[in-house]
């Protein structure tokens, strides 16, 4: 058994897993606040990455300025999607809302391919990349950066929901919309804010992935990998999303280890999360931390 290789993969898994966690977190944010299952989460990630890439390469904006500009853009973009497309659908059946986000993801995916082409583009060097040696492991600094950013965002999110006024308003809305409204919370604004924040957080994750791997339409796979993560963690638990993301990231890389050492099936790591997804749906559909939906007539 190749311990060195396994360790290396597990570190990769941790890094990718925290990124899944961040994306899953922004997915759960929208689901919790607005009851919308967002199939276009991966595309938000991709849009963020492409916008930042355009600013940095086409307009030669320095990174410290380009990143905030991307965030401002994504903030406005998130609000725009919510107001223009999802607001008219409030009160419609769940199916319609799901369908709209699926269609949105198709539109964004194709539009981005149209604008930027299908070839991956390297991201401009933001950090000088080198590898640090910890013990016997070689870890690239971008990975460390990615880990730090992800953890920082998770902490930021925790602070946002525990302390800030907006976060509390969102939690209240998620708990009961009518009661929240009667307490003076504007549910409309909360919905728009949830999308705006989710788009921003996704964009940060998108830029981080882009810095590590370059920008390509393949980035939107993060939006799909979110599903195993959130189902594992529980659809309406932000903490669960983070845990689920990390577990899925580790599992994926562990599957790759098993695959390359023993099974030799090839690309097992890509489908392994989906097998896990089916198994979880069969035995524990509400996930590790999700609230069980009890219905009363």
């Amino acid at each position, binding site marked *: 058994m190749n311990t060195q290789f396994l360790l290396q993969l597990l570190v990769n898994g941790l890094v990718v897993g925290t990124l899944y966690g961040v994306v899953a977190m922004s997915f759960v944010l929208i689901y919790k606040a607005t009851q919308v299952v967002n199939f276009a989460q991966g595309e938000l990630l991709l849009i963020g990455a492409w916008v930042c890439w355009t600013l940095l390469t086409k307009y030669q904006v320095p990174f410290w300025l380009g990143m905030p500009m991307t965030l401002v853009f994504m903030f406005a973009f998130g609000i725009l999607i919510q107001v223009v497309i999802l607001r008219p659908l409030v009160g419609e059946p769940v199916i319609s809302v799901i369908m709209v986000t699926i269609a949105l993801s198709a539109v964004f995916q*194709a539009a981005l391919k*149209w604008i930027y082409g299908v070839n991956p583009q390297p991201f401009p060097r933001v950090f000088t990349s080198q590898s640090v040696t910890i013990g016997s492991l070689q870890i690239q600094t971008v990975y460390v950066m990615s880990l730090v950013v992800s953890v920082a965002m998770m902490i930021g999110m925790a602070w946002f929901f525990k302390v800030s006024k907006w976060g509390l308003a969102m939690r209240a809305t998620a708990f009961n919309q009518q009661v929240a409204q009667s307490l003076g919370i504007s549910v409309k604004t909360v919905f728009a804010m949830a999308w705006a924040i989710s788009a921003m957080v996704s964009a940060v994750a998108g830029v981080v992935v882009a810095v590590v791997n370059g920008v390509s339409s393949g980035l939107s796979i993060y939006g799909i990998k979110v599903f195993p993560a959130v189902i594992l963690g529980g659809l309406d638990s932000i903490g669960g999303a983070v845990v689920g993301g990390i577990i899925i990231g580790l599992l994926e890389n562990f599957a790759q280890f098993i695959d390359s050492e023993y099974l030799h099936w090839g690309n097992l790591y890509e489908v392994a999360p989906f097998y896990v997804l089916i198994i979880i749906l069969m035995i524990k559909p509400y996930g590790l931390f999700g609230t069980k939906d009890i219905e009363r007539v």
Partner: protein
Amino acid sequence: MASPSLIPAGDFRSSYAVDTTIFPTKTSRNAAILGVVLICFAPQLLSEYWLSQLIMIGIYGIAALGLNILVGFTGQISIGHAAFFLFGAFTSAYISNNYPIPVFFSIPIAGVVTAIVGLIFGLPAARLKGLYLVIATLAAQYILLDFFSRADWFSGGSVPATAKAFSIFDHTLRGDRQYFYVVLAYVVASYLLVTNLMRSRDGRALVAVRDHYLSAEIMGINLTKYRTLSFGLAAFFAGIAGALYAHNQLVVSNEGFGIERSILFLAMVIIGGTGSIMGTLMGTAFVVLVPEAMEWISMELKGGVIDKALALNNNLTFLREIAIGLIIIAFLVFEPDGLAHRWRQIKTYWKLYPFSH
């Protein structure tokens, strides 16, 4: 969602038998029969190209019909329909290549096998609600496509699988002009079958599950049974359509059956009208013909200013996807009942003509 068909004033139903006829009026029955008879002449009249488009509408129409049972009648969503379609295609090709079974029989067998696979993936969702089924079918899409790409014995792996031409015992049908009738027969049979299903106890149970599943359960409808059944039916029709597709194209490959294709099937159902059987066919025709229309528009604009600015011709595939996505969104926001509803409104408008208000 599905609204009852608009029945002219004075048409009273005085028995259950009259209320549940397949065709609500005599005229509609005659019109349907006439339509089928007329379309029988299509192979003689249409060019090869338009005939192949018509066959595609028929094949996708069957798959979309299956999806409409799931989405429109039972109120569940599947975004793995393309994978089941492809599974049917591979199964039929595999059966007819490896066993001495003529293609005539391998198509229904492929439907049944696909239904069984559909049931396996539908099982976890049977006790869950729509949202979880969506995610389970998402997983099904990825798992099945991954299976096709690695199962060399079944699907040829990276090499496309070949399928035989349609044959009954020793008689082989050649070309689209003859194959058209096979597709037509399947379309008529499946549309009649589903219309018939919907006026039976099982069909009404499915609708009850969609409209209010708690009430349905209280009334003695077994939720698990009917959710699984509708999932199996959807997979069955996808399998049949896939098998028809395989023996039409004669080669089957993984290519182009990703999640985009599943979204396309959903688009057919939504554009046609969820819960409307004839609407499904309209929606399918719409979705199949949109690319044609777009090609035509881009040809018209070729060399013009807009074309140069946006590079339309080089990016037609992407534009098509964008158009389909935007059409789905527009239909959901502005016309959630789809083309079927619009069609009914046009009909009433003419029926009541100068006094339509």
